[in-house]
């Protein structure tokens, strides 16, 4: 086994950084929810609250030049790769300072400077793309790794199957990370899937090992993704990692999540990635006062972001007709 498959070291400095990241993402999504409720965010949003451990843990194992691909539930991944809370919220509010100039919205957050290549709203579609950026890395002879985050429900769509098979056949440096939150929209994943673990129990169909981990523990995620990254960089091909997690809100803005059995949310809240990491910090000897400082700083960053995003002007209406073609325009005829 290559070195990378060893468990990576963890410093309290790392833990502190991850904790702050978790809090900023959590706070930004809370703000998004409130802005939605007050009518300032239109369309729809799919909040990732509860899933942030996967984003922060995986990001901690990646290099800045690695590629990340996400779904419509992608706020956490964009922010974990460097998208500012302000650019995130501004996008949701259709502002000119938004990540995508108001053309993408919540479901299509993209942050190219962080090689966060976009959020895709057709279930499964980004998985072949992640295979493609991994292929590209091989072709260009860089050792960049690609990561596709996806939901449990996405494992039942054809594109998933085609993507993983091709990645294995071509032995590409891509990591498929499933955020198994028990539900595809309103339907329990177990009722529509032929196996217990939608991603991990499919791994053998592509000659890959079965990996299921606690997605709410940043350190566990970082370690397991770290091993997969090491394998990928060493030319050993793809991995599938299934992270068990839970979303705190409903599927999307309109969903009160009444289909959840009583007590389920409460149980998972006890394993909230924020709480888990906070406990680890306390255990590592970080005091309450220091934690309060971190929490205050995160809160302030979010507050500032909300204000800045609110203050920004709507994107220019002419933006509707730009960016279709690479020349920047949308002309289609003479």
């Amino acid at each position, binding site marked *: 086994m290559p070195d990378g498959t060893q468990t990576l070291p963890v410093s309290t400095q790392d833990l502190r950084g991850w904790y702050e990241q978790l809090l900023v993402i959590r706070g930004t999504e809370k703000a998004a929810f409130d802005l939605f409720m007050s009518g300032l965010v*239109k*369309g*729809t949003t799919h909040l990732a609250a509860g899933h942030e451990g996967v984003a922060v843990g995986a990001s901690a194992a990646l290099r800045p030049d690695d590629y990340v691909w996400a779904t419509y539930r992608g706020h956490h991944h964009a922010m974990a790769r460097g998208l500012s809370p302000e650019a995130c919220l501004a996008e949701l509010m*259709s502002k000119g300072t938004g990540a*995508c100039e*108001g*053309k*993408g*919205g*919540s*479901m*299509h957050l993209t942050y190219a400077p962080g090689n966060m290549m976009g959020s*895709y*709203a*057709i*279930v*499964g*579609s980004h998985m072949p793309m992640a295979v493609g950026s991994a292929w590209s890395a091989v072709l260009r002879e860089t050792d960049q790794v690609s990561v596709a985050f996806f939901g449990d*429900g*996405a494992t*039942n*769509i*054809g*594109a998933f199957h085609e993507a993983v098979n091709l990645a294995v056949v071509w032995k590409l440096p891509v990591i498929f990370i499933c955020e198994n939150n028990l539900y*595809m*929209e*309103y*339907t329990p994943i177990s*009722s*529509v*899937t032929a196996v217990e673990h939608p991603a991990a129990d499919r791994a053998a169909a592509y000659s890959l090992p079965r990996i299921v981990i606690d997605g709410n523990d940043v350190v566990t995620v970082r370690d397991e993704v770290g091993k997969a990254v090491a394998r990928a960089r060493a030319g050993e091909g793809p991995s599938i990692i299934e992270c068990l997690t839970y979303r705190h809100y409903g599927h999307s803005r309109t969903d009160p999540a009444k*289909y959840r059995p009583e007590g389920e949310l409460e149980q998972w809240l006890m394993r909230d990635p924020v709480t888990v990491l906070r406990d680890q910090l306390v255990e590592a000897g970080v005091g309450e006062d220091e934690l309060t400082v971190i929490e205050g700083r995160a809160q302030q960053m979010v507050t500032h972001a909300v204000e800045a995003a609110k203050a920004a002007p*709507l*994107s220019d*209406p*002419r*933006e*509707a*007709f730009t960016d*279709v073609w690479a020349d920047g325009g*949308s002309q*289609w005829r003479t």
Partner: protein
Amino acid sequence: MADLTYREAVAEGIAREMRRDPSVVCLGEDIGAAGGVFKTTQGLFEEFGPARVWDTPISEQAIVGAAMGAAMTGMRPVAEIMFSDFLAVCWDFIANEMPKVRYMTGGQVTVPMVVRTANGGGLGFGAQHSQAVENWAFTIPGLVIAAPSTPADVIGLMASAIRSDDPVMFFEHKTLFASKGERPPEGHMVPFGQANVVRAGDDITLVGLAWSMPIVIEAAEQLAAQGISAEVIDLRTLVPLDASTVLGSVARTSRILIVEENPLQGGWGGTLASIVADEGFYDLDAPVKRLAAANVPLPFATHLEDQVLPSVATTVTTAAAMVNS
């Protein structure tokens, strides 16, 4: 009769057929106990139970393919594809299988099924959840294409769709779900291929479909205030296409403006315009005009989306210019 919403009309239209015919079954994502993400199947699971209303995985190819296999062997499945944009992930079944099996088997096999889907923009759902894709279906011979604009038409066309022995694409429009209209009596049916002349007029023919109907109706009101008498036609189905009604209208008005939600390039209005510019050529006193979506993906932001889609204002301006020039 009491009013009902377009959204309720969908569930009601399906329910009426399910009560009548035990071979009608529904399948789709979250359509069961959850009642569908647009609540268009609300109550069906409660009334008909899990043996008639089936929740599926996120497997659109399996949904439409399984519906086909069932349709070919004695059932009348009604498959839901949640957003019409997702027809793309099962396009092989829509374009290459459903509409061709009867023909390529020399008539040995029929495919009596309905694919229902929430179509169109206007709600700020962005490029992958907002497209009006009735024109995709219009490129494929062998599909009936229905796109109702009122609750009564939803019920009437749903009855025709479910009873049809041909594969039917049934486009329900997202922005119309909350609109209200009269609840039609039991047994109400709207036959395919019969356009609805919503308003009679002499100066210009306005043709719309589904989403664009409220727009052309409001535009006709505003034109009337300007002294312009517009005839308003709701096509209701693209296939069969009621070209006669349109040509007959143009024979009287000598002007036509087609208002489409789909993009101008490859929009259904192109084919209709070409028929009018051919068969109705000598009736025309003005250029054939189309208003359609700009040839761009749909943007997320409402103020940008507004730039891309036709509006009452552009309809009125265009029509008035046609009549007054």
